[in-house]
């Protein structure tokens, strides 16, 4: 008859939640103001995490589309304190480089076709593709039957470029060996470029157009159309988009009167998992050509390493800002504790009555912890909604698609409950320990 078991807790939980809501409803304004601290805390953490995740996501997405496993081999300046570059004559030149910014390598410093051919021979089947490019810059193309023009970014490419950059030719063909040998004025353009210049549904193959580059006008014939995928940035109108356009490498070099060498090229390794070793071997291979070069050497890097560097940087900043935001959560928690203390003082007689009616200490404690958790949970849920809204607005302002983090949301719900329990425990225990006689006498 007199057993007082834990079944009371189970039976009472729903009633406790109901009582908590009734009590909060009775002091609506106070409850909202108390929640505000939690709302601001959770909201700002979620907003920051959402913006940060969107940024990271967009960056790694656009880098992924460029091919993360591709290795970029490029000329880099030897730093003056680099032991291999330290010769007595470099000192003066090294200083001038520093003072006047990055310098351009001279023609004799460039990576030559011979070196690349040797490299291809040396590594053989470790190499899937070597992509060589020559940037001609941006040009404008007049739109048929209109005064508008479309922008293109012209790049001279070799055969391997298609493999290295995963160009999806949907109509016609890519640049071939014949085009390269004959320095032909042919090009591969974007499907959307064809629609923009010639109109919707027009087959671009065989069409020719004039493109103005650096005040010179060239005529190119379309031999292939590829499927264009916009990168992360959002363009307001189609005229703002600059479509990549590919021409034979030899043509680009000839039109640009460019030197025979390359500042950089892209290699696709046959085994992605061995990329780190492959990169090291590549650097070692080219080092032999540049040991006597006083200011230039060759380094290999991959998108993979760049992506992880950028991502790490963003998440470090993100964690730092979120930690600052979390301080407001602490302040919010203290606010909850304060209001629970007030609530318990106000309801001293109620607590006394409950004890006289047979409420054991743990039932009183549970009642007030539930109330504190309910405040924090409601605040947390509102905070999540506010945070996602703010984060979405923030991400859109920066021009990225918002990616609300599910982990952050689940963690926020858990964390706000934890705040409720943590900051509710002390006031609730105080209530549970009240002497019923004193409490009943309290005015």
């Amino acid at each position: 008859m007199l057993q007082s078991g834990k079944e009371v807790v189970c039976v009472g939980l729903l009633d406790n939640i109901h009582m908590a809501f009734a009590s909060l409803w009775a002091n609506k304004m106070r409850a909202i103001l108390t929640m505000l601290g939690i709302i601001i805390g959770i909201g700002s953490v979620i907003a920051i995490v959402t913006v940060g995740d969107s940024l990271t996501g967009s960056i790694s997405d656009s880098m992924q589309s460029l091919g993360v496993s591709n290795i970029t081999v490029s000329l880099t300046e030897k730093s003056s304190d680099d032991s291999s570059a330290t010769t007595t004559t470099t000192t003066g030149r090294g200083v001038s480089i520093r003072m006047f910014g990055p310098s351009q390598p001279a023609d004799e410093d460039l990576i030559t076709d011979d070196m690349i051919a040797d490299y291809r021979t040396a590594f053989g089947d470790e190499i899937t593709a070597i992509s060589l490019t020559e940037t001609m810059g941006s040009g404008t193309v007049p739109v048929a039957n209109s005064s508008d023009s479309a922008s293109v970014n012209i790049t001279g490419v070799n055969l391997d470029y298609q493999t290295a950059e995963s160009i999806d030719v949907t109509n016609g063909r890519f640049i071939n060996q014949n085009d390269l040998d004959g320095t032909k004025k042919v090009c591969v353009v974007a499907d959307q470029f064809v629609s923009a210049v010639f109109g919707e549904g027009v087959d671009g193959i065989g069409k020719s157009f004039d493109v103005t580059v650096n005040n010179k006008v060239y005529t190119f014939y379309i031999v292939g159309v590829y499927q264009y995928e916009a990168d992360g940035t959002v363009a307001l109108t189609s005229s703002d988009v600059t479509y990549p356009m590919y021409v034979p490498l030899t043509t680009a070099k000839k039109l640009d009167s460019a030197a025979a060498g390359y500042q950089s090229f892209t290699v696709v390794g046959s085994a992605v998992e061995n990329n780190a070793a492959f990169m090291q071997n590549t650097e070692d291979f080219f080092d032999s050509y540049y040991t006597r070069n006083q200011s230039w050497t060759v380094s290999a890097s991959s998108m993979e390493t760049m992506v992880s560097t950028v991502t790490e940087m963003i998440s470090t900043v993100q964690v730092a800002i979120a930690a600052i935001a979390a301080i407001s959560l602490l302040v919010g928690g203290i606010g909850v504790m304060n209001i629970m203390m007030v609530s318990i003082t106000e309801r001293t007689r109620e607590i006394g009555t409950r004890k006289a009616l047979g409420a054991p200490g743990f039932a009183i404690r549970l009642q007030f912890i539930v109330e504190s958790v309910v405040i924090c949970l409601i605040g947390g849920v509102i905070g999540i909604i506010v945070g996602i809204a703010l984060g979405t607005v923030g991400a859109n302002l920066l021009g990225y698609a918002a990616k609300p983090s599910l982990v952050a949301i689940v963690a926020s719900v858990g964390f706000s409950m934890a705040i409720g329990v943590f900051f509710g425990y002390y006031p609730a225990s105080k209530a549970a320990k009240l002497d019923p006689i004193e409490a009943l006498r309290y005015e």
Partner: protein
Amino acid sequence: MAEPNMTDTPATARAAAPLIDIRDLIKTYYIGRPNELEILHGINLTVWPGEFVAIVGESGSGKSTVMNIIGALDRPTKGSYLLDGIDVQSATDRELSAIRNRKIGFVFQTFNLIGRTTAQKNIELPMLYAGIPARARSSRAKELLAMVGMGDRARHQPNELSGGQKQRVAIARAMACNPALLLADEPTGALDSQTSRNVMDLFHDLHEQNGKTIVLITHNPELAEECQRILTLKDGRIVAERKGSGVRGTA
């Protein structure tokens, strides 16, 4: 000090064990401190099941202390207290909670209904702490509301009820777990004479029809006169004990 042996307890009840059995009760506050204060100086009190007993006394006589001890809100400093055969002196806090919950129904002068909580929910409260399932609580609460003539006020909150109505809800709440003892502390103290009459009639009904044991603590001699037995408390001792009329007053 005369031992309170002269009772008019019914023979049937006398054969059973007493409901309240207090022996040589001493209650001291601030033990071991310079302001140590002995409030009760050796109380002997026996209440048999089915009795309607009044405890009267001026303020400062120790009434509240006696009530707190009878109500298991406090423990005796010395002496023994058996409530329905359970030793209150040695009970733990949790056991005291359970004793208050199952054995005692409190009726307070100031009603002490929980605010912003309907009459029905107030009545369900002791049953909630007793671990009775929601459905059983609800039907028992409705039954009790009907018994005190408040069947149509189940969803009203305390601030929507008059003083007399509040006290009737409070009495229904005290009856929720069907306690062995109804302990009423100045139950009519905050009510006008007409509503006081109604509340006293309700106690008489519970005593006569349900056979409830009732201990009424009051300073009002007219109300005390309606009980079967009247104990007078003065300066922490029971100084007089006599029979009451046991019949309802008219005013």
